[in-house]
Structures are given as structure tokens and as C-alpha cells.
């Protein structure tokens, strides 16, 4: 990442330094400020200075206090991910210049080109008569060195291909070599173009063939898929015919457990068996007619019926009590009672207690009746108040 102006440079550098946790950056920043002012004083633009300074991420990383070997591996990783370029930007040129656009003359070798091909033989070995230092328009320091080295029988590290070497040699004084070189170039160029065309056509043909084949296979696949879907549905429908009937399912224990609650228990479930009127959320809306009737009934019931019922209940309980007392007296208290035979006395005693229990039960029933009457009255009151 290279900035385009000074402000951007400082901003990005600040971000990167912060990201890497570098503190104490003031002196560094002032160094760069100085660099910028010196650069602009010498006539460079901010953009040019930024380009000179290079990749900001790398600058930030070099501030870290870590061993150079670690930095190497970090940088190498970034280079691999194509985030950092360690050389100045340069054009990449194809190894075989005969495939390049203009191949009439040997392509001008750029200083910053990256060549990826090194020939096995130096140009001097192929064209021994070539003049070592006469490189007119194809001359670069690199090439001159290469030729010079080749001529001294040194390393075969001249850059360029065999054809290019031929072309280089052809630039020397020697008209025939020039012509040979040119024809070789042209022939290679034509051959290359013809090959390109041929391969291109073949590629197109194969593409078309591939598309049609692919289309056909796709349709076949769809058809098969549809057929299988239908078959599957048919099988499923057939299977469903043989499913156990619903009534059978009801009798399985699982369903029985999950089935309805038997009716005799539902009453008990709701409010202990009693029906209450649910007026939660309702506003009182007094029905005056109903309410007056209720009040009259109240007077009647609360002041007459209910006391009577209660008295009756008490009387019953008292009677039961008396009988029980009598029974006890029979058993233990009365002298005359002892004239009877023992078994008779037992019958009498048990009889009295049984009677007492029965009467007590009657009293209890009456009490329950009285309570339900009270509840009924209250419900009537509520209904009158809410006008239900």
C-alpha cells in the first residue's frame, strides 16, 4: 500500500503503527516530515515522495523490535500473498518476445523488466563472431554485461531467449546475420500466430461440444429424476393404504394416555368440582331489578331460612350427641341396665353409637346443603351486579 499524498501517508502509517502496537512514534513522524519537506524542496511532488518511500505496511513493520529473520518470514508471507513488492514496479515481459505484439525489431529491454527464462547457451556461443560491445538499440547495462561475460567465456547468464540472442547478435555489423535474425523472428511469429489460431479454434470446438454434451446429460438427468420422484410417490401412496386405521390407533396405550380425560374427572379438575362465575376483567354493571330481588331474597334467607337450617343442624348434632351419651350410660352408668343379659347390653350400646353416627351424618348433609345454598345466593348476587 503506497499513499498518494502526504496526508494519506501519515494517516495510513499511523494506522499501521497502531495496528502493530508501536508506540513513541513522534520522532519517526517528524523524520518523515523532514523527508517530505526536503523532497518537495528538491522539486518532487508529494506523490513521488510517497512512491519513493515505498510500502507503508513494510515501513511500519520495520519499526518493530524483532529479529530480522522474523521480519523476513513476515515479508515473505506477504510477498507470497502479493501484498508487498520488494522491487520497484516494473513491467513483466513474456519470456519469448517473438510472441509479443511488435517483434519486427528486437524489443527494447527495459531496465526493470523481470525475465523468467535464462537460456542454456550464451549468445556468444551461438554467434561467436558477434562483436562484444556493439549493442546499438538493444543495449542495456545488463545486456552488455551479459555479452561481455559471454565473450570472456564466463557464465551463461545472459538474459533473453535463444531467438532474442539471435536478434541481439544480428544487431552487430553483419548484414546476413541481421537478415537471418529477422526471418527467424518472422517465421516464429507466424508460426506462433498460426498455432494460436489453431488452438483457439480447437478450444472453441471443444467448448461447443462440451456444452451440448452437458446439456444433453442435464436433460437426461432431469428426466431420470422426475421418473424417480413419481415412482417414489406411487410407492408412498401404496404404503399409506396399508396404514393401521385410526380407530386402532386410538386403542394403543400411547394414544390412550394422550387421549381425553374421562368425563367423571373433568368436574373435579375445574375448581374442585364447582362452577364459579369468572368475572375477572369485567366491569360492574348493576342490573337494578335483579339486585333488588336479590336483596329481598337476602332478607328472607339470611334472616329466616338460614338460621332455621342452622338450628336444625345443631339439633341434629345435639340429638346425635345425646344418643351417644345414652349409649355410654348404658354401657357403664345405669344399674338397672345390668339386669339384662350381657349380649343384650352390647347390642344396645352398639346400637346407640350407630344411631349417633347416622344422625351425625344427616346433620353433616344438612350442613352441606346449607353451604351450597349460601354459595348459590352469592352467585345470584354477583350475576345481578355484573348483569350476567
Amino acid at each position, binding site marked *: 500500500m503506497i499513499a498518494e499524498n502526504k496526508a494519506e501517508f501519515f494517516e495510513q502509517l499511523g494506522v499501521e503503527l497502531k495496528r502493530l502496537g508501536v508506540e513513541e512514534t513522534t520522532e519517526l513522524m517528524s523524520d518523515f516530515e523532514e523527508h517530505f519537506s526536503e523532497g518537495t524542496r528538491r522539486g518532487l511532488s508529494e506523490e513521488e515522495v510517497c512512491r519513493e518511500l515505498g510500502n507503508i505496511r513494510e515501513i511500519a513493520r520495520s519499526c518493530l523490535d524483532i529479529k530480522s529473520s522474523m521480519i523476513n518470514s513476515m515479508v515473505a508471507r506477504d510477498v507470497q500473498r502479493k501484498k508487498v513488492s520488494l522491487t520497484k514496479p516494473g513491467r513483466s515481459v513474456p519470456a519469448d518476445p517473438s510472441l509479443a505484439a511488435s517483434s519486427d525489431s528486437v524489443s527494447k529491454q527495459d531496465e526493470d523488466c523481470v525475465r523468467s527464462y535464462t537460456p542454456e547457451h550464451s549468445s556468444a556461443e551461438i554467434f561467436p563472431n558477434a562483436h562484444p560491445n556493439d549493442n546499438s538499440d538493444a543495449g542495456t547495462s545488463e545486456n552488455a554485461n551479459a555479452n561481455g561475460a559471454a565473450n570472456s567465456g564466463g*557464465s551463461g547468464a545472459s538474459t533473453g531467449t535463444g531467438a532474442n540472442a539471435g536478434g541481439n547478435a544480428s544487431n552487430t555489423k553483419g548484414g546476413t546475420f541481421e537478415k537471418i535474425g529477422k526471418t527467424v523472428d518472422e517465421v516464429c511469429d507466424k508460426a506462433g500466430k498460426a498455432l494460436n489460431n489453431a488452438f483457439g479454434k480447437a478450444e472453441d470446438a471443444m467448448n461447443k461440444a462440451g456444452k451440448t454434451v452437458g446439456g444433453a446429460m442435464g436433460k437426461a438427468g432431469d428426466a431420470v429424476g422426475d421418473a424417480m420422484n413419481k415412482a417414489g410417490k406411487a410407492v408412498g401412496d401404496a404404503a399409506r393404504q396399508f396404514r393401521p386405521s385410526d380407530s386402532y390407533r386410538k386403542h394403543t396405550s400411547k394414544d390412550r394416555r394422550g387421549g381425553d380425560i374421562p368425563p367423571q374427572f373433568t368436574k373435579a379438575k375445574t375448581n374442585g368440582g364447582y362452577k364459579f362465575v369468572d368475572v375477572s376483567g369485567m366491569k360492574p354493571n348493576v342490573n337494578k331489578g335483579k339486585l333488588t330481588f336479590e336483596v329481598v331474597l337476602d332478607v328472607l334467607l339470611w334472616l329466616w331460612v338460614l338460621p332455621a337450617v342452622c338450628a336444625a343442624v345443631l339439633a341434629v348434632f345435639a340429638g346425635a350427641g345425646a344418643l351417644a351419651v345414652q349409649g355410654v350410660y348404658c354401657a357403664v352408668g345405669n344399674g338397672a341396665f345390668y339386669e339384662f343379659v350381657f349380649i343384650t347390653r352390647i347390642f344396645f350400646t352398639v346400637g346407640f353409637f350407630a344411631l349417633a353416627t347416622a344422625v351425625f351424618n344427616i346433620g353433616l348433609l344438612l350442613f352441606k346443603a346449607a353451604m351450597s345454598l349460601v354459595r348459590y345466593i352469592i352467585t345470584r348476587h354477583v350475576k345481578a351486579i355484573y348483569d350476567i
Partner: protein
Amino acid sequence: MNSQLKRGTLELCALSAVSRADCYGYELVNRISKCMEITEGTIYPLMKRLKESGLIESYIVESPEGPPRKYYKITQSGKEELQRLSEEWFEFTASVSELLKGEYEDDSGK
């Protein structure tokens, strides 16, 4: 040129450049980048580290034609370090060259 070689020798080059003459930031950067291709911005952090290690020191010179400049100057320990590093370098390059020449001779002899 191999980037790892560049990184390893940058310190040596910087010390050498400063030892010959005191120079300020821009000048130093220019001088080094003429000889080899490096990310020029990394020189300033390098100088900062060298200063922290006590191998160089800096002083400010007021300039009539612009802002004050920071000049770098090598210290005694810096000179010693430079000496040690250059010896190491020459030893290293000599032995590598020997190896390469030896191999080449063996190859051409076949």
C-alpha cells in the same frame, strides 16, 4: 536482488554511509537507494533503532533555507560495530565466492 540479503546488510550499509560523512535523512536515503533497491521508508526506523542501540547519534542543524535538519553521526561503538560487520561480510562473501568458483570449475571439468 535477494530481499533477505538486502535486509541483512541494510544496517551495515547505513553505518558505512554515515561513517564516511555525517548526513541527514534524505541524503542518506538517497545514497543507499542508489546502490540497491529497498523500501526507502524503512531506513528511518532503522536509524531509530541504531540510535537506541547507541551506534549512531543525531544532532539538529538550523538551516537558513528551510526547516532544521537532523544529521546522523556515527559513534565510537558504531565504528566498532561497523568494523565487525564488514569483516563478517567480507569473510562471508569470500567463502561463498570460493564455493561457487569451486563448483563451477568442477562442472566445466567434466
